[in-house]
């Protein structure tokens, strides 16, 4: 039996009927066509599917779509809503060469945004701990860590407040 759910994604309201065994990852990618969120391992180890549900980052592959009824989801597509000006984290990923094949990028960026919202001035160790739930098979970890520290500095300078979706 399908369940009727209402939830927000990047500020837009959606109303859907979903089978209970479908994950949030499947619904985002297949029904809403938001393919910025990736599916890697499917078991919560690689972090490629990371999205926000309310103010927490979660693995969308281990989140049932029915469970986000009434909640606000934020995906990588919601980081730069205008499509013109990138989020400081995205901008820093490009400028420091933190994107290679790009598959891990959207998940890494969501966790970076989560980390910086709790800790605006993280040490390198804290950045690595905050991103420990992510794998980059291109192994470009150093650039990713650098990108996040560059973004942190930018965001502190501009006093940019994280806008919740």
């Amino acid at each position, binding site marked *: 039996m399908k369940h009727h759910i209402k939830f927000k994604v990047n500020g837009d309201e959606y109303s859907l009927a979903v089978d209970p065994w*479908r994950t949030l990852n499947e619904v985002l990618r297949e029904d809403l066509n938001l393919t910025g969120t990736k599916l890697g391992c499917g078991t919560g180890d690689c972090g490629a599917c990371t999205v926000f549900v309310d103010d927490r980052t979660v693995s969308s592959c*281990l989140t049932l779509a029915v469970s986000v009824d009434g909640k606000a989801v934020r995906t990588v597509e919601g980081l730069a809503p205008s499509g013109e000006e990138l989020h400081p984290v995205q901008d820093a990923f490009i400028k420091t060469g933190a994107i290679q094949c790009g598959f891990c990028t959207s998940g890494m960026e969501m966790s970076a945004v989560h980390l910086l919202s709790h800790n605006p001035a993280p040490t390198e160790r804290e950045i690595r701990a905050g991103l420990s739930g992510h794998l980059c098979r291109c192994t470009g970890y150093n650039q990713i860590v650098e990108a996040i520290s560059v973004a942190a500095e930018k965001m502190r300078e501009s006093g940019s407040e994280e806008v919740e979706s």
Partner: protein
Amino acid sequence: MRLPRFEYFAPKTLDAALSLLTENGEGAHVLAGGTDVLVKMTLGRLRPKALIRLEGIQGLNEIHFEPKKGLTIGATARLAEVASHPDILTHYPAVAYAAQVMANVQVRNMGTVAGNLCNAAPSADTAPPLIAMGAEVTVASLKGERRLPLDQFFKGPGLTAIEPGEIMTSIFVPSPPPKSGASYKRISARCGVDIAAVGVGVMALFDGEACREAGIVLGAVAPIPMRAIKTEGLVKGQEWTQELIERAGDQAAQESKPISDVRASAEWRKRMVAVLTRRALEEARERAKKRYTAAH
């Protein structure tokens, strides 16, 4: 990689959840954070007919500390909430630490302590410090509630004392006595993220320069998180010396029953039991001193 089909229920009350669990019989499974259950289902190791999700039950996620009694952690309180809760950080730093070092940010944002216990992995990080601190769990069924020591909860890998029709509703940890300290130490191939290859939880009570008694619990070196009974007996009532700590480590290693697997060899695990037991005892002693100083 798709989940198998199942029926889904999201009851709003515990009574409704218990009724659903009984009505649906053995094919029904309880879902808290989902970080173990959904993985097992994805990998085909678990095929429930129905999932009963607990998250919507009001009040079940509460974390409550009463200084004279103790700490209650509701079944749907998330690991991240436990790891960062001010009362838990102050009075139960070993428990906060266990919840903080396991898994990764996303999993800690979803998973629960109750789920970690009910999954009953021998390596469950929250079990050793909770058992060492004398934790009890409350399980409910349509017949009522019962409370049992966490020490008697684990029956084997993946097996617990939970009977059909029962749901764990909370975990209770008594207030740590004055002049006591607790610690959890763990080691794995990667820092954090990785499942613990060995974990040791300790709570020790002191009487001046002597150890009045201690709870010492070993993780990932037996089919269940195991109390090192002989080690507890060895340190009980003894003068607190470096030699005692060394002997306690050796004794804990001797009574541990590890296996060799992908994460570590049995021999290495035994050696690490000795090292981590010593370090946990030392940290427990330091914390007891600090708490005593802070209180006077």
